[in-house]
């Protein structure tokens, strides 16, 4: 298999942890809440899924348990940020540290153990194509993840629910005046973000590399956070960014295998560098920020 077809075949799977977590964070941020705890929520989801799958609960059960665990952790954040009106940055970092700690704690007995992955489901015909065939042979989670992406995009863009979430993020006072429960909607958005981060962690630990190692999320939560900004809070661009960074991480592997010297640290820094540049570019331009940004992001809402 050539390096190119290797990357094309694997990039969706590599993108999945970024994509799922970033989509969840996108919804939370669209409602006006900045949750910096993604890395910890993913780590918790990863360990919960791994333990459940290892105890032969199966992958479906593992994903459900992971999603619920991370959503529960995100509700702790939501309670602090929304009910207690604590500083969102501090609260996000707190549950991030808590999640990473719990993950390491629960995973201690599972260090270096493995679980079975998931089989690939191929699209008949298309998966036999030269070069790009691998793209059409993915595990069930990738297919479901792509469907979920489509659903989130459509919900945010076309449904009333999506409109309300965006309104709450843009102008919570106006949304409240219209009779919407701002705090309730934000709780929901944050919990959805936790659920997705849990799925992302579960995918990383039980499907993508089905082996437990402490700290296995390895900064993918931070990349997901960066992606949301990089994508200027647009669903389509999140998908593009996630697949791009997935492909970049694979090209690193392909280059190593091929004996090509790539500066892997520079590659690993790329998402962060790009995010800083994008953040500078959109923030500098008031009009761009108005179109793209979320006006009330990170600001507490109270009576």
């Amino acid at each position, binding site marked *: 298999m050539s390096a190119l077809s290797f990357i094309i075949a694997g990039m969706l799977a590599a993108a999945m942890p970024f994509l799922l977590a970033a989509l969840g964070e996108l919804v939370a941020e669209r409602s006006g809440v900045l949750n910096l705890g993604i890395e910890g929520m993913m780590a918790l989801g990863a360990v919960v899924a791994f333990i459940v799958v290892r105890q032969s609960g199966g992958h479906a059960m593992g994903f459900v348990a992971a999603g619920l665990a991370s959503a529960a952790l995100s509700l702790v954040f939501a309670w602090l940020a929304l009910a207690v009106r604590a500083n969102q940055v501090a609260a996000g970092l707190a549950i991030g540290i808590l999640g990473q700690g719990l993950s*390491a*704690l629960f995973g*201690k007995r599972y260090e270096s153990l493995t679980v079975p992955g998931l089989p690939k489901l191929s699209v008949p015909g298309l998966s036999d194509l030269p070069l790009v065939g691998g793209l059409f042979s993915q595990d069930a989670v990738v297919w479901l993840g792509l469907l979920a992406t489509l659903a989130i995009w459509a919900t945010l863009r076309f449904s009333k629910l999506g409109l309300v979430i965006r309104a709450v993020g843009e102008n919570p006072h106006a949304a409240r005046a219209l009779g919407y429960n701002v705090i309730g909607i934000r709780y929901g958005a944050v919990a959805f973000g936790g659920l997705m981060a849990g799925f992302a962690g579960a995918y990383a630990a039980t499907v993508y590399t089905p082996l437990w190692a402490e700290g296995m999320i390895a900064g993918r939560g931070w990349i997901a956070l960066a992606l949301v900004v990089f994508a200027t809070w647009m669903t389509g661009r999140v998908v593009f960014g996630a697949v791009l960074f997935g492909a970049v991480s694979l090209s690193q592997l392909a280059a190593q295998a091929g004996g090509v010297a790539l500066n892997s*640290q520079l590659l690993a820094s790329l998402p962060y560098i790009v995010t*800083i540049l994008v953040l500078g570019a959109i*923030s*500098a331009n008031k009009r761009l920020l108005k179109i793209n940004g979320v006006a009330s992001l990170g600001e507490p809402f109270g009576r």
Partner: protein
Amino acid sequence: MGIWMIRRTTASRRMAVLAPMGALALAIVLNFLLYIVMGNDPAAVFYALLLEPFVSWSSFSEVLLKMTPLLLIAQGLAIGFRAKVINIGAEGQFILGAIFASSIPVWFPQATGGWIWPLMLLLGGVGGALWAVLPAFWRVRLNASEILVTLMMSLIAAQLLAYLLVGPWKDPMGFNFPQTVMFQWDAMVPTLIPGTRVNVALILALLWSALAYVYMQKSFQGYQLVVGGLAPHATAYAGFSEGRAVWLSLLIGGFAAGLAGAAEVAGPMGQLQRGISSGYGYAAIIVAYLGGLHPVGILFSSLFMAALYIGGDNAMVSAGLPVAAVRVFQGSLLCCYLAAIVLVRYRLVRDGQEAPA
């Protein structure tokens, strides 16, 4: 029936002291419930984690050693936090400080003289401040949130460190380990208390705390920073620019974190390596908040947090508690604190019970 939060007309001083203590008590209860569920002996863990760091001089000296970087970083960060400049990139500024300081022993391993370690500390501070220049510029000139930019800069710093350690700065005789040469004697901060690892950097951290106290509590500029954080429009009207507050906050915070990084490589580490930080930059954020962003409070919170690290090591050895328990404790402690601290500025009132103004 519900409970409402009513804003107090003035912050409660009594609560400002009681809330952190209540949070600590709650965190201890929650974490010990977890230890019991995990099958650890709670009495043994309690002794090893919370008491042992203070009972023997040898472990208390290690607490003082750990306290040094936390105190340095947290005092710097708190200044920014009070001005509402949220620098969460101390981790990266710490790493850059360590890198800048290491440049002397790495490039001039034969150099001798009493000037080497002070110059390294100074370089470290400069390195940390330089790493904060871009976020400050981005915020002041481009209006970009310093929260995300400082965070991204930290993640880049970690990669830069990794690059130096596997590439140009790797010890050629180091069996391919990602670390630099061991530093020469003169590149090490002198020991303060014989027989321990506590070094002169502790004095610097205490001096830095005194300076932070004078600056934030007594000086006009410190006052402007605090008021600027509370009422940006009022201070802008009074002619104090927000840009200056951002530059000051980020440069001070970066300098302090860089200094801490330098003191760490030139102190307990003795060489530049991957595990240079063990998360001090993030832990210091907890320390800063837990200390109520007040220089005196931070003195206590950094001591406690340092003791928690040492106690965690003790509890691993004597009570079989996994090291990760320390991070769980840190995270849950900050959660409890954030919940408790609300009582300083709000009163809780039941439904139907009219709040007297």
